[in-house]
């Protein structure tokens, strides 16, 4: 169920850049089915964008992106041990900004027995006491990792457990795990042109009470580059979209079974644009069909 959160609205009002991103009113959020905790509809990914190594200038820029994200009411940041230096870059931002409502989502990405030590290292890099969500990255050794993650959840070392895939890979296996394991989250790819999960995974997530994080909302930028050659339709204003990123993100998060989308960016202007999709009106079914038809024909 869609929820309105007040904190984000206050943050938006305090943020002079918020108006540019159409951040007026209350931030939109959904509940995580297993806990009823609410998270805003748009989070922040870190694939490629936050892997800047030890470049002090770029690391400071990433911290500013995080600052803009939190100022816009954002909470969930997602990363992985696979993403190079992204975890430590996030950790530097966390230490600098000390966000009060961070929702840390990371992954375990290693073979066999090393999962627990990798999570300890991830926690150290993030500079947080505990991670909120740990997901099995691309189902890697999930039979070994899931029991370990569930143990850690029982011991209150993490709060949620999930699995991930991207771009349609291993969906049958994802479905099987969703049916049999007590998951809190599943992370999959979904966007206006790639809607495969609508037929089976999203209904299954609703049935099993599993939150859904959506990755690759812009097809790694390719979708943005494609649509940006065309004018945003005037009727996008009916759902409070001021730009293409908001149009594409609102399509994703307006699906009632999607909990959160995680676009990645290293630009403050872009993170504000993205967060604008967490505010205002969302498309209804009829409008969603119109959005699909429009993007498919351009």
């Amino acid at each position, binding site marked *: 169920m869609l929820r309105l959160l007040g904190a984000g609205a206050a943050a938006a009002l305090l943020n002079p850049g918020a108006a540019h991103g159409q951040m007026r009113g209350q931030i939109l959020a959904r509940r995580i089915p297993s806990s009823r905790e609410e998270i805003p509809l748009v989070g922040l990914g870190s694939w*490629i*964008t936050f*892997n*800047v190594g*030890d*470049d002090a200038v*770029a690391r400071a820029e990433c911290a500013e992106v995080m600052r803009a994200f939190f100022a816009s009411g954002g909470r969930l940041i997602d990363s992985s041990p*696979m993403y*190079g*230096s992204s975890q430590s870059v996030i950790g530097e931002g966390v230490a600098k900004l000390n966000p009060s409502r961070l929702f840390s989502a990371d992954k375990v990405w290693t073979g066999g027995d090393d999962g627990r030590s990798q999570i300890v290292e991830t926690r150290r890099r993030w500079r947080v006491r505990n991670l909120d969500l740990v997901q099995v990255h691309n189902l890697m050794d999930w039979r070994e990792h899931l029991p370990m993650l569930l143990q850690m959840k029982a011991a209150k070392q993490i709060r949620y457990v999930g699995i991930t895939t991207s771009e349609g890979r291993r969906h049958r296996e994802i479905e099987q795990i969703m049916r049999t394991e007590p998951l809190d989250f599943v992370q999959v790819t979904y966007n206006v042109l790639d809607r495969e999960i609508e037929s089976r995974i999203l209904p299954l997530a609703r049935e099993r009470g599993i939150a859904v994080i959506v990755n690759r909302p812009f097809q790694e930028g390719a979708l943005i580059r494609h649509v940006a050659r065309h004018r945003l339709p005037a009727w996008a204003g009916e759902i409070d979209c001021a730009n293409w990123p908001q149009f594409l993100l609102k399509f994703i998060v307006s699906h009632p079974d999607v909990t959160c989308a995680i676009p990645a960016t290293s630009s403050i202007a872009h993170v504000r644009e993205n967060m604008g999709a967490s505010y205002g009106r969302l498309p209804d079914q009829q409008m969603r069909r119109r959005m699909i038809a429009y993007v498919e024909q351009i």
Partner: protein
Amino acid sequence: MPEWWTYRLSDLLLFSARTYYRMFELYHAQVWPFHVIAIASVVAILVLLRREDGWAQRTIAGLLAVWWLWVGFAFHLGRYSTINWAAKYFAAMFVSQGLLLVWYGIVRGRLRFVVSRSVGDRMAVGLLVVSAVLEPIAGRLAGRTWSQVELVGVTPDPTAVAALALLALATPRSPRALLVIPFTWCVIGGATLWALGSAEAWVVFLSGLLGLVLALSHRAHS
């Protein structure tokens, strides 16, 4: 990796073009003035190629080995590993090549670098010049700043091309084991640039391929 065939080259890329090029800038600032030594070594090799005594041959092999060891430790381990977890494997490749060059070129004295008047040898010398001069220019033309371009003996792509060019001059023919890593790197380095959308990829691919063909087709001089 299950379903590996579903992954595109870009799916394997961990960083943006901006981050990749900026890494070279930071690296160059970090290792300066090693560039002076590297350029001097290229000039020294060009001079030593005119001599055929054993000391000169071993010196060329030694300088080539120093390039590979330096790039392995300083570039891959010291810098590239900050944005690519695979860099430690690349470092192992480069150090292995350096040790192979020490073994074949210095310990066993198996490498004699001789420039004949054959077309192949002239092309090999031309390829050496390409790696030293044209690759930095290609980088600049492709959008890098001068502080971000690649240099022989300092960064991996031109080092691999220069190594293939020199090994194509080896008489008798270079041991094939010495060609594997430089050519493999030309594929990896070219693929990285390709995934980043840089036209430099073609320079690395084609130079590597030419170097390999020249080395494999090289005929011993009497």
